[in-house]
Structure formats: C-alpha cells, structure tokens
C-alpha cells in the first residue's frame, strides 16, 4: 500500500513531538561535547515547522518535505539547520510531485537526503556525526525493501540506533565535538541521537493503523 502525504505529515509531527520531549536530553548530550544547544535548536526549528504545517502542507510529498526543509534552514541556524534542512530539501526534491509514495520512492528520497547531508557537512562515516546513524539506516532500509514496509522501517530504526551507539567510543572528527580531541570519546553524539529519533518517528508514523 502506498504511503500518503498525510502519513508523511504525521511523521513530521511525530518527530517534532519527540524532539520537544527529548529537548533537554539532547541539550545535555551536547553540553558534554558541544555547545549545549542541539535540543533547543531542533525544538525551535520543528516548532516553527509545526506552526507552518497548515501553510506548507501540500498535495505532494515533495512539496511537504521542501516546505519543512526551507523552514528549518530559515529558523534553526547552527549546523543542524543547514543539515536537517538539506536532508528534507533533497528528500523532497527526490519525491517531486508524487502523492502516493511507494517504498522504493521513499528509499530513493532517504538516499538523496543522506547524500545532501554528506555533501553539505562533508562528514564521513566514523566522524561521529548524524551520518553515522543516517547512513546505516538508509542502507538497512534499502536491504529490507523486499519484505514489508513496516519491517524495512524497523530495520532502518534499529540500524540508526546501532550506528549511534557504535560511534560513542570514537573521537569526534567533525563539528564542535572535534575541538575536544580525545575528550570526546565515550560521549554519545547528539546529532546521531536526533537522527535516530527521526528514523524512529518515521517507523512509527508509517505503521499500519498509526
């Protein structure tokens, strides 16, 4: 069964709700190795997205995601604004005018979003960034497409969480955490954490009956 634009809007709402709930936790993680604003910034951006949702709601999946991306670029600032903004802009570009999104189209959109994030942030795997959660999630989704959509999304969410936890012991090589050198090792990455929340929100919003 194809994914509707309403379901994707529900994903955006669910991600916003969970960012609001996790705001302090994300900021606490960022205090340890960054500058203590990740939760605050993501919440500010997604509250702006929620406020604009009636405006940016679109008949097309691409229109919705592009609206989300533009809002994030214009309201978040920091590194998260351009990175999450680029993710949604590129994913929206891949979805185009589609109204009923197939699992394959969603896979292509997630892949385009990931490539945009890598291009904008110039981060690679093991740099200890959001890419370490997003990249394995997109790969796992691709690999699981043969089965049901809920299973593929579950695999993507598990892979994101595993990626997030896998880089905790590493030394950060990008973003503000890289300034700490060895001291960044052992701390969970805030960006990989918010990305895992995003993929989990996608999984939960697209469950049958959700």
């Amino acid at each position, binding site marked *: 069964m194809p994914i509707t634009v309403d379901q994707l809007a529900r994903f955006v709402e669910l991600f916003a709700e969970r960012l609001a709930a996790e705001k302090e936790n994300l900021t606490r993680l960022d205090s340890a190795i960054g500058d203590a604003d990740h939760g605050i910034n993501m919440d500010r951006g997604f509250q702006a997205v929620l406020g604009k949702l009636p405006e940016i709601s679109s008949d097309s999946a691409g229109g919705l995601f592009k609206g989300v991306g533009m809002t994030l670029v214009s309201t978040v600032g920091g590194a998260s604004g*351009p*990175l999450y903004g680029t993710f949604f802009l590129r994913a929206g570009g891949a979805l185009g005018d589609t109204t009923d999104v197939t699992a394959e189209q969603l896979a292509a959109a997630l892949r385009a979003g990931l490539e945009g994030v890598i291009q904008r942030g110039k981060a690679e795997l093991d740099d200890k960034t959001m890419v370490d959660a997003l990249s394995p999630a997109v790969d796992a989704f691709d690999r699981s497409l043969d089965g049901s959509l809920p299973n593929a999304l579950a695999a993507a969410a598990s892979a994101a969480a595993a990626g997030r936890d896998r880089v905790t012991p590493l030394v950060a090589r990008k973003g503000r955490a890289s300034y700490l050198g060895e001291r960044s090792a052992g701390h969970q990455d805030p960006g990989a954490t918010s990305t895992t929340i995003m993929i989990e929100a996608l999984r939960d919003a697209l469950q049958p009956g959700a």
Partner: protein
Amino acid sequence: MKKLINAPDKVVDEALAGMAAAHPDLIRIESPNIVVRKDAPRKGKVGIISGGGSGHEPMHGGFVGLGMLDAAAPGAVFTSPVPDQMLAATKAVNGGAGVLHIVKNYTGDVMNFDLASELAQGEGIEVASVVIADDVAVKDSLYTAGRRGVGGTVLAEKIVGGAAEGGADLATAKALVEKVQDNVRSMGMALTSCTVPAAGKPTFEIADDEMEIGIGIHGEPGRQRMKLASADEITEMLATPILDDGPFSKGDSVLVFVNGMGGTPLIELYVVFNKLAAILKDRGMTIGRSLVGNYITSLEMAGCSITLLKLDDELTRHWDAPVRTAALRWGI
C-alpha cells in the same frame, strides 16, 4: 540561573532593540535581526559583514559603524545565524562594489554563510568570503572541523574595515583578511563555565580550584582540565603555543590583544598583559599595538584569551585608521 533577563527567548531581540536605542547615530536594526550601519549602503564602498551566534558581545554588532563592519548577523545565543540574515545583510550593505563575508570557522557558521553567499550571488551581488581560523588550541587537520575562529576575527574586522573605508576593492579587502589570518594566532582559557539562557544551567561543571585550558567561545570545554595556576603560569601556557605555532620571530612588531571572556575584570587582564609583555621582550619582539578588554566574549565566563598578530606597515596603517562603533572608537 541568575541573569539580568526577562525571558530566555527574548534576550537577543531585546538586546538588539536596546542597541538600536543606545546607538541611533551608528546603527539601525533591520528584519530579520540584522545590525546595519546607519548610512549603509555606501555607494562604491565594499560592504564588510560578519555574523555568528549571540553571547560574544560586543562582537559583532558592537563593531558595526564607520571603519569596521557595515552589518552584522547575530544568531541565537551560541548558534550561527540563519542564511536569511546574512542574505539580508549582504543586500543592505551592497553599494555596488561587492560584499565581503568574514566567517569564523565553525561548522554551522560556514554552512549558513555558504548558503547565503550562493543566494546573494544568485541575485547578482558579488560576494567573497574569508574563514578565520586562529585558535592554536585546536589541532589543525584535514580530518577535523579545523581551528576555531576566535580573537583574530576582531583584528581582521578592524583592519579590513579601515581599508574598505579608504576605498579598497573587494579583491584587496579579501587579500587583507587572508593576510591577517596568516599572521594571527590565539588561545584562550576559562576559570568558570557560562550559562546559555535557554539552557538554564552552566554548560560544564568546574571546581573552584580547576581551570580549562584551550577553550573556545561557546562555553564548550577545552582540551585540558587542570588545577588552577597563577596568572603568570597561565599566560605562559597560552603564549607559548601561540609563539611556537605562528610566524613570530625576533625583531617582529606584534599587535598584542588580551581579551576577557566576559566575567573577568580588567585588572586581571592587565596582570596577564604584564607577563605577556615580559615574554615578548625575552623573545626580542616589540609591542607595536595593543588592545585590552572584553571584545569577544562567552557570556559571563571568567577567563581570557591571548591573540598575537604580526604587524607590518600595511596592517598597522589600517589598524590605526579611524573607527567609530559602539565598542571601538579612535581617530575620529
């Protein structure tokens, strides 16, 4: 949290409104939250803009005015501004001779300025950018975000502002900032943490007998936590890596900038300067120019940073050029 604020989410807006009320002869505030020189755009003059998170006052808004910046884009506290702000600032100061973006090397600042630069060029405005990365506490490597932009930014903004006021074109202005970047090094330390208003509690915990060496300007921890040392020892710890890393040698004239992080009194900054002067004398260098005070801060953090810039006649001339801003004024 004990702060002189009304509400955490109103701090930046209310401070900007206060600046506009205090300095109507120098600046105006435009939407979306940019500080613009009162008489901008000036026809035929290269526009100089910078931007970054708030919480570093007087940088950058306090440096807007004659002989320094034409506009500044302040983001949320410690968060880079959004591209809309840099785009609006670029348009507001474009007098037809192009606009120079001075960007501090932080991942977010670089990405947001890049986006703004693409958008401005799409609208037909010539834009050049220079990234300032002068903090020797950060290991420079192809595989990291690279050095942070700190105290050298203040000096670059003053020097290029003086040159642009004197009629330098965009290429010359860009080359001048690159020259400052090549010849400037900084390092900072903290005695206390600071509290981002929206976070409500200090960014890191630090005991009364501890200090952080190699901090940035966002309340982030430094490279090393140590037992508190004397001002002379701390000055050595900051000056030595700067002098070893930079292009400094015997006989050089240097601009010596001792900066407070926001919560350290001037009397202590002069104690630091005293030791620094002795260190430079030992190395056979002369203090060509000096700047002491709170110019690039980290909210209420106690601590200091040291910045050294190797001077030549060109840099000295533009440093001495008249400046009239909220935070720096001389020669006029």
